[in-house]
């Protein structure tokens, strides 16, 4: 992933541009924390803001799978309760 990072040098100022995805709109703190931990374990976490519950990852495919899996598990649990 490191080779995807582009460094700019403009007027002596260094800038770093990294492609990836912003993951946002978590409805609960727990969903946010667990998904964030997963991103950290995968080594794809590059930026985070705990107040907003936003984070940026270099690759999002596995994160999307993780989120979908959790949503399915939660739906199944809710149905079991009904």
């Amino acid at each position, binding site marked *: 992933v490191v080779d995807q990072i582009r460094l*700019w040098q*403009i*007027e002596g*100022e*260094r*800038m*770093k*541009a*990294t*492609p*990836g*995805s*912003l*993951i*946002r*709109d*978590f*409805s609960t703190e727990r*969903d946010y924390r667990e*998904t964030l931990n997963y991103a950290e374990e995968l080594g794809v976490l*590059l*930026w985070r*803001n705990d107040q907003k519950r*936003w984070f*940026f990852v270099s690759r*999002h495919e596995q*994160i*999307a799978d993780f*989120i979908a899996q959790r*949503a399915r598990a939660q739906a199944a649990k809710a149905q079991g309760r009904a």
Partner: protein
Amino acid sequence: MPRAIPGVMVECDASIKAIIVKIDSERHDYILEDLDETTVLIKESKLADLKEALERELQDTQTFPEDEDSD
């Protein structure tokens, strides 16, 4: 349900970021999200354009006259 927004995360000096925000304010065409003081999410397709605009802007602001040489 969380969303994934694809883009390019640009990390830079706060002063450069302020210029990026200023460039974007003209047409709102580059920034997807303002992340923090030194970080901004940019549309990938617009990254090269932004770099050019930034270089132009920096050239304009930095071409102030040289100090006149006394003596």
